[in-house]
């Protein structure tokens, strides 16, 4: 039977929708046509960046070859929170006004966690628990982090600090991140001993702000870890954003500052000083925890994630390996488990 032309809209509409879905991101990601730069010049761009007031949306996704365990309801204990951080995606809004005032809002579907810093005052608010915890920072103890923790800037600094003979740094091209033209710095480990294939750092061509970090694992097409801005607004955020008053009904607490600066909620609690072996990309960190780590795991999550190896249990992801030895040590590194086992002996 001949097809009536009344079906034409039904044929056209999906095509238009699909075309829109494909071309809009393509237009947004169009090659910005920037002049060529050397790695040195791009790094200088970062170093000379004066842009310290902005707000934006940061997204983090991981593809570590781990099962998605977000449904298991981790996040209560440190290990659960770490696993949750590793396996699921996160969106945060970041507002920064100079080095003293910042606010990070970790967005979850029906809840949100806020870290508000205004000078010496730091508030951590958790909407699902309805708790507000206040911490007072000591006055300028050494250096101040130029950027809030967990942002691309912080990760970029870590990466850049490692730039030495262990790493080959090139400018792999230009791109668009969060609607802004960027240079892509590419870092290739000079060793084969690591699970890291290469990493890229997107640097805003206009402001020098690091906007995105991608880490690619050996033998994996999609990046294993991505954190970066999806939106960036260079206007100074509204001052009221940094003035936090605990809402009525919230449980308000006060926390004494430990040895280190206030850390992000959800980060592994820091214990005794770690031991470091190996070098460069193949560095192995050893942390004596004491006692049987696996036995302390209440949720049974470690049991699920790890597999037994000689002398303990191991967690192997595409990017990072963790070895929990029977004698209570934790070894971790961006290396295969076998190397951790060798380091443990």
């Amino acid at each position: 039977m001949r097809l009536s032309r009344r079906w034409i809209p039904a044929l056209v509409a999906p095509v238009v929708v699909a075309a829109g879905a494909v071309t809009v991101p393509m237009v947004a990601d169009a090659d910005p046509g920037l002049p060529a730069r050397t790695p040195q010049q791009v790094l200088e761009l970062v170093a000379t960046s004066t842009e310290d007031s902005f707000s934006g949306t940061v997204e983090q996704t991981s593809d570590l070859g781990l099962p998605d365990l977000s449904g298991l309801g981790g996040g209560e204990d440190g290990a659960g929170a770490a696993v949750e951080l590793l396996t699921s995606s996160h969106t945060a809004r970041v507002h920064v006004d100079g080095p003293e005032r910042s606010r990070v809002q970790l967005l979850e579907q029906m809840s949100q966690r806020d870290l508000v810093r205004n000078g010496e005052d730091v508030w951590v608010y958790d909407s699902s628990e309805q708790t507000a915890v206040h911490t007072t920072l000591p006055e300028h103890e050494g250096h101040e982090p130029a950027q809030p923790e967990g942002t691309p800037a912080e990760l970029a600094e870590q990466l850049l600090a490692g730039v030495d003979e262990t790493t080959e740094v090139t400018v792999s091209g230009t791109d668009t991140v969060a609607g802004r033209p960027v240079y892509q710095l590419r870092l290739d480990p000079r060793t084969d001993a690591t699970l890291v294939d290469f990493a890229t750092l997107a640097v805003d061509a206009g402001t020098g702000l690091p906007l995105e970090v991608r880490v690619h694992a050996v033998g994996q097409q999609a990046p294993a870890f991505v954190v970066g801005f999806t939106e960036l607004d260079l206007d100074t955020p509204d001052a009221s954003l940094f003035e936090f008053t605990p809402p009525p009904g919230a449980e308000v607490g006060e926390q004494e500052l430990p040895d280190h600066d206030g850390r992000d909620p959800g980060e592994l609690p820091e214990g005794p000083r770690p031991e470091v072996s190996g070098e460069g990309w193949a560095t192995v960190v050893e942390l004596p925890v004491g006692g049987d780590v696996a036995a302390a795991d209440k949720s049974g999550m470690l049991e699920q994630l790890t597999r037994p190896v000689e002398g303990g249990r191991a967690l192997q992801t595409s990017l990072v390996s963790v070895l929990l030895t029977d004698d209570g040590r934790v070894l971790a590194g961006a290396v295969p488990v076998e190397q951790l086992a060798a380091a443990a002996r």
Partner: protein
Amino acid sequence: MLFGRRRTWAMLAALALVPVLVAVAVRIEDPGRDGPPFLGSITSNGLFVSLTAMTVSIPLFLPLTVGVVAGDTIAGEASLGTLRYLLVAPAGRLRLLAVKMAGAAAFCLAAATTIALTGALVGAALFPVGPVTLLSGDTVGLGGYAVRLGLLVLYVALSLLGLSAVGLFISTLTTVPVGAMAATVVLAGAAQVLGQLPQLEVIHPWLFSAHWLGFADLLRSPLDLGSLGENALLQLAYLAVFGSLAYGRFTTKDVLS
């Protein structure tokens, strides 16, 4: 027409019952911090009843009622035998389709409004009312809350538009309204199940239910309208695709009932 029907009012009444049940249950026993989002906040602020009721209604009750309305649009007329008289009147097939879609959209808005308003009223009657704490820990006054609740109603109504368009299309395929309603409701369930499967992450942003629970973004400070926009685009895409499918099907179909 839709609102001249007892069944429509019965469904709205059933939806209104959700916030009432939530409020009464909390009144009888304080749930503490457990249960669905916002539930624990109700005892200190009755206005949260709307939000809890909306959260619990979105996965099932709202799609159910919208499925009934959207599935009934054309198939219902066909089964009553009124479709042929409307067409001979002549109502015009495109016009009839547009009127039916508009009716379904109006129901989506009415359904979301019912839950939000009943929730606010019941909450105000049973619990204290005051400035509302947002997810970010900031508080807004009643005026600011009213604006956000209005946006939230809009968001939820918009969320159901894609499902309505799917239901409209299914409704043009059959003369058995119950079949069209069931198929629409089943699809709403299926979309949510697919949305839960991590293996299908690629298609998640394309499900009409993708942003159903994203209305929480309207309860953050600063106000984030990003997901409202994304949701609107997605739902409009569904409306365009399934609306034109319904048009193709309905304007070429032999009305034999």
